[in-house]
C-alpha cells in the first residue's frame, strides 16, 4: 500500500490560498461589498425618500389631527432616521412625537379615579393589590411638580386625587420631568406615563403610585394632547405645549433648524 506522505502546512496553505482562489475570493468579496454598499445606498436612498415623503405625511397628519396616520408616518420617519443615522432635532422631534403617539394610543381604558375608589372601598389595601390594579396603565397627566423634602430626586405631582379616605400621591423620578421642573418650577407639565407600582402608607394615610419613568413622555403636540381629551382651541394648552417643546429643545425655532441636538429628547429613557 502506498503510504501518503504528510503534506506540510506551508504546502497546504499555498494550495489553499492559491492565487486563483485568492483572486476569486477577492473578487467575490469585492462583489459582496459592492452589493452591500449598493444595498445600503439603496436603503439610504429609500430612507431619504421615505423621510421626505413621510415628513410631508406627518405634517398633513398633524394638520388633519389624524393620529393613526401620524403614528404610521412617524414610525417610517423614525425608521428612516435610524437608517440615515440622523440625531438632529427633526429626528429627535419625530421620535418624541412617535412616542407621544404610542403613549396616547395606549391610554388606559380604565379610569384611575374609579379604580382607586374601588380599591379603597374594598378589602384591606396591600401594595400588591394596588400594584396589580394599576401596573402598566398609561395616563396623561397635567400637573405641577414638587420635590419631596426627604428625597430631592423624587418629584410628586400636584394632583389632589382622593380615593376614599386615602390621599393619592403620584411620584416620579423621570429625568425629562426633572429637567422641565427645574426650568420652570411653577409651570405644570403635560405628559403621558404608565404606572409602575403602588404602595400604601398607612401611617400617612396615603396611597403612593409610582410612575414608570421609562414610559414618561412629555407631550408637545396638539394632536397628541387632543387625543387625550385636550381642546385644540385651548390657548393655554397650546402655549404649554409650545413651552414644553421649547424646553426640551424640540422646537425647530428654538434650536435653529435641523441641526444636531445634544439634549435628551422628550421622554428619553433614564
Amino acid at each position, binding site marked *: 500500500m502506498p503510504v501518503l506522505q504528510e503534506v506540510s502546512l506551508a504546502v497546504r496553505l499555498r494550495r489553499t490560498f492559491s492565487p486563483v482562489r485568492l483572486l476569486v475570493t477577492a473578487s467575490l468579496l469585492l462583489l459582496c461589498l459592492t452589493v452591500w454598499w449598493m444595498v445600503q445606498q439603496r436603503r439610504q436612498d429609500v430612507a431619504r425618500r421615505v423621510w421626505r415623503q413621510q415628513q410631508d405625511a406627518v405634517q398633513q397628519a398633524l394638520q388633519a389631527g389624524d393620529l393613526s396616520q401620524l403614528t404610521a408616518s412617524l414610525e417610517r420617519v423614525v425608521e428612516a432616521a435610524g437608517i440615515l443615522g440622523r440625531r438632529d432635532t427633526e429626528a429627535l422631534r419625530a421620535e418624541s412625537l412617535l412616542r407621544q403617539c404610542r403613549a396616547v394610543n395606549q*391610554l388606559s381604558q380604565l*379610569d384611575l379615579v374609579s379604580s382607586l375608589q374601588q380599591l379603597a372601598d374594598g378589602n384591606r389595601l396591600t401594595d400588591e393589590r394596588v400594584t396589580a390594579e394599576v401596573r402598566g396603565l398609561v395616563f*396623561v397627566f*397635567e400637573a405641577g411638580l414638587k420635590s419631596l423634602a426627604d428625597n430631592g430626586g423624587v418629584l410628586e405631582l400636584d394632583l*389632589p386625587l382622593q380615593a376614599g*379616605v386615602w390621599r393619592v400621591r403620584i411620584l416620579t423620578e423621570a429625568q425629562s420631568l426633572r429637567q422641565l421642573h427645574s426650568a420652570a418650577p411653577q409651570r*405644570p407639565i403635560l405628559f403621558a406615563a404608565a404606572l409602575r407600582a403602588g404602595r400604601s402608607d398607612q401611617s400617612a394615610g396615603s396611597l403612593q403610585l409610582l410612575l414608570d419613568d421609562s414610559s414618561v413622555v412629555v407631550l408637545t403636540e396638539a394632536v397628541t394632547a387632543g387625543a387625550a*381629551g385636550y381642546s385644540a382651541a385651548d390657548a393655554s394648552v397650546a402655549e404649554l405645549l409650545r413651552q414644553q417643546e421649547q424646553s426640551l429643545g424640540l422646537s425647530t425655532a428654538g434650536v435653529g433648524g435641523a441641526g444636531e441636538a445634544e439634549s435628551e429628547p422628550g421622554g428619553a429613557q433614564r
Partner: protein
Amino acid sequence: MRACRAELRGLVLCACLSVWLLPGSACAQTLSVPQLLKQQERWGELADAGARVQLEGRFQSRTAESFRLEKLELIFRHPPTVRLPDRMRRAQRVEVTGGFTRDGSRLFFTVQRLQVGETDEEQLRRRMAEPGNEQPEKLLQLAAEYVLRSEFYEDDVLRQEIQAVRGQAIQRQKQQVRNDPAGLAALLQSAEQLGVSGDTLGQLRFELLVLRWKQPDAELSGLLEDARRMEGWDDRQRAIPAGLQESFAKNAGAAWSAASVAERRLLQRQLYVQLRLRDLRQQLKADGSNGLELARLVREELPTEQKSAAELEQRAVTWQLSRADQLDRQELISVSGLLVQLERAAEASQLRATWLQRQEQRFGLGTLAGQIRTADEYLFVGEEWQDRDSRDRGVELLKQAWERAGQESPADAEGLAQRLKTLGWERLKSGWISSAEFLKRPPDDVQRAVREGRVVRGMTAEQVSQTLGRPNRTARLAAQRVFREFWIYDEAGLVVRLRRNLQRTDDPLVVEEVVRAGAGK
C-alpha cells in the same frame, strides 16, 4: 155866693158833658173801657153831674147785685130790674148804660140798662163768616179792628184768632199770587209785617223758595242761601219717606202745610237737596269731566242722593271712557273702581285692556325702553287688579326685554333680572321658572345651586367659574375614555373635580365631586 159858684160850676160841667156825651148818645157812640179809663179823673164830676154814660167792656166777674168788667177797677151795680144772664162767660162783651154814683167816697157805676153780647173771638169769627168778608183785604181789615182790644186786654186767644184771620187772608192772597214769585215775596213781606203765625210765614217762605226754584232762570246761590235759613236743611242723615217725597214732588206747598213739624224739617231738607242738586248739575261741564268731583260733593253733602251721585259718576265715567287712551294710572284706578261700583265690572276689564293696548302702541315694543315701559304698565295692572293675564304678559315682556338687554345693554339686563326675581322668577339655563318651582327643585339641582352660589355635582365648568371664580391652580388627568380636571381653590380649601366623557364629543366638563382640600385618612 159860694153856693152860686158851685151851681155855676155844675152847670158848666153839665154843659160840657152834654157837648161831649150827648152827641155820642145821639150817634149811639159807646165808650170803650180804654176811653173811660182815660177820663178816670173826671168820673167824680160825672157822678156829681149825674151824667149818663154808655160803656162797652168785657165781663169779668159778678156778685148778686154787681159785676165787674175787665181792666176796669169799678163796680157795676145793677138794680133788680136789670138782670145779668145766669150763664155769663168771662170776656163776653157787655154794653151798659148808666152813670157814676157816689157811695161815700167810693164811686160806683149804676147800671140802668145792660146788654150782653158774644166774646170778641166769637164776634170776630162771626164777622169773618159774614158775606163780603171773604176778601183777603176785608179779612185783614177785620183783624186790624181787634188788634187794639187784644193788646189792651192782653188777650192771647184773641191775638191767635187775629193771626188766624190774617193767616186766612194771607192764604187767600197766596192763592192769587200762586205762580208769581214777586207777588209771593211781597206777600211774605206783608205777612212778616203783620206778624202772622210762624207756620204761615214758614209756609210762605217754603212756597216762595219752591216757586223760585221752579223758575228756569232761578239764581241758585241766593236760593241756597235762603234754603240754609230753614230748619233741618243740613239734616243729612235722615232719609225722607217715599210718601213725603211723592207729596213734595206733587205739590210741595200743600205737602208742607199738611206735614207735621218733623216732616216739615224733612221737606225743607228735601227742598235744599233739590236746590243743591240743581246747583251741582248746573256746575257739571258739558263733557262730564268734573262729574267725579261733583259726585263726591253729592255723596258728602247729600248722602241720600246716591242715585244722583251715581248719575254724575256715570257722566264722568263716560267721559273717561271716551279718552281711555289718555288716562294716567291714577285715573285708570279711579275709573275702574267707579265702573265696579256702578256694577259695570266687565267694562272695567275692557277699559284696562284698551288702556294696556294703547300703552303698548304708545311705548312700542320695537325698543328696549318701550318694551320695559310696556311691561311696567302690564305689571301695574296685574298688581293693582290682581289680573293674572296682565301680570303674565308683563312678565313675558320683561323676559323679552331681558333677552334683548343682554345684547343691547347688559347693565339693564342685570336690573331686569333682579326685577324678574322680585316678581318670583328665576333664570335657569332652560329658561325662566317661578320661584316656587325653583324651590321645588332638589338642593343638588345645578341651576338652583348656581343661583344660591353653591357648587354641586353636574355643574359645568362655566357654572363653577361663575360661582367660585377661576381656581388658583388646576391639574388634569386623562385616560382613554375619561378626562378629568381638578380645580383647586386654596382660599376656600376646596377641590372641584370635573369630568368629561371622551366617548361623547359633545359631553361638557361637569363637576363630579367637590371635596375639601387635604381631606383624607
